[in-house]
């Protein structure tokens, strides 16, 4: 397929791997790079890149939107599903995430109405078809997803659909990177920045990384050659001591991102503090609906108050999301916790580090 096969060329990959090995060996210490995108996590495991380089430590960060959703938010979602007259519309990954006492899947077996959708527009369609019900879409995702939900809300407004609303659990990536860098225990020598978040926000929001923390950041694509080239670019920056934001995935990411999509995003949402699993509250790292669109805010329409409870006992998702532990370091990994019976969200989502480590079997 076009734009895929040429980025999987085995001969070029082989040459690049050799170059990366030489380059990383010439830097006199072990280098730690973090990817902050679930699709990168999966791509890295799948291509077997994780364990290729003895001098490179590739760690996963908080790049899976479902995984970073807090236990309290999951409990709120369960609470919503229990209410009469509600249809919950969601991306598939949310269905099996365990809350404190149940999951959406458990609620379905108790009679809750939950629809898995591929696009927020499908949720709007369900609202049009079920006028007597209230359809609530679970808005989980990063900057790639937020504009699609903003556009759907603008569409709902144009059509005057009133039985549609959202729970906004959106998260923003650059504030999370900033919070990670500010933590003393986390050591990162460079970031592999998410390709499709950057397709929307562009490269400028990452400028603080080289400026304030003097480490490189490279926006990467998702094919094996993309990731290898991005690793090479990160190492070159370290070798030549010139930390900067560079775009490897330049066939899709422009420095200015997608200004039209950003305009829609900010027309509908405004930044707000948000709670991340493992990372706690990060200032201005979430999105809430602006006052003009408050009638689409399900959290204002329904009583979703839940008790504050801890994350599942023994689950190391929080540490995994910060890159402080590998999935295989978790005592529950593979035995008690597996994709059939997940304990934490990192084992549920197809983009979660634990699910990827389990599926591709490499640490």
């Amino acid at each position: 397929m076009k734009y895929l096969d040429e980025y999987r060329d085995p001969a070029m990959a082989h040459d690049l791997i050799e170059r990366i090995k030489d380059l990383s060996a010439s830097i006199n210490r072990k280098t730690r790079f973090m990817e902050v995108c679930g699709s990168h996590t999966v791509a890295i495991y799948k291509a077997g890149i994780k364990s290729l380089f003895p001098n490179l430590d590739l760690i996963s960060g908080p790049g899976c939107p479902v995984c970073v959703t807090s236990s309290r938010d999951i409990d709120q979602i369960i609470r919503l599903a229990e209410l009469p007259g509600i249809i919950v519309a969601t991306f598939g990954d949310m269905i099996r995430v365990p809350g404190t006492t149940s999951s959406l899947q458990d609620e379905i077996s108790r009679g809750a109405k939950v629809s898995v959708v591929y696009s927020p527009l499908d949720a709007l369609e369900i609202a049009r078809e079920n006028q007597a019900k209230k359809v609530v879409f679970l808005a989980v995702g990063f900057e790639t997803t937020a504009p699609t939900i903003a556009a759907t809300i603008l569409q709902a407004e144009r059509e005057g659909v009133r039985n549609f609303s959202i729970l906004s659990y959106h998260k923003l990536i650059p504030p999370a990177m900033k919070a990670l860098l500010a933590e003393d225990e986390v050591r990162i020598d460079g970031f592999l920045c998410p390709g499709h978040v950057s397709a929307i926000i562009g490269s400028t929001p990452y400028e603080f990384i080289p400026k304030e923390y003097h480490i490189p950041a490279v926006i990467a694509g998702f094919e094996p050659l993309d990731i290898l080239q991005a690793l090479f670019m990160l190492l070159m920056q370290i070798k030549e001591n010139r930390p900067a934001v560079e775009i490897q995935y330049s066939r899709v990411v422009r420095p200015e991102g997608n200004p039209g999509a950003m305009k829609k995003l900010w027309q509908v949402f405004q930044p707000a503090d948000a709670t991340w699993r493992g990372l706690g509250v990060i200032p201005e790292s979430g999105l809430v609906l602006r006052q003009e669109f408050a009638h689409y805010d399900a959290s204002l329409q329904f009583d979703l108050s839940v008790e504050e409870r801890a994350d599942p006992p023994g689950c190391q998702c929080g540490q995994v999301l910060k890159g402080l532990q590998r999935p295989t370091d978790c005592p529950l990994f593979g035995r008690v916790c597996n994709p059939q019976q997940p304990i934490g969200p990192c084992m549920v989502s197809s983009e979660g580090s634990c699910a990827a480590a389990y599926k591709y079997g490499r640490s």
Partner: protein
Amino acid sequence: MCIAVPCQIVAIHDSTAIVEVGGVRKEAWLDLLTEAKVGDYVIVHAGYAIQKVDAENAEQTLRLLREMLEREGDNQ
């Protein structure tokens, strides 16, 4: 949630495109990429086209990468 696979636009009606990838056709909304044209390759996320794939840039990146690897090969 994210399909990283570039899809080609084969038709556009109002703000909806028909895109094709690997012989499969589906709809993609163009509200976030109003400048997209028939023939363009686009990235589709949650039903919306979010960015165009720049054909010239794609070729150039690969060419530069190939040149770099060859150059290094000669040095060894």
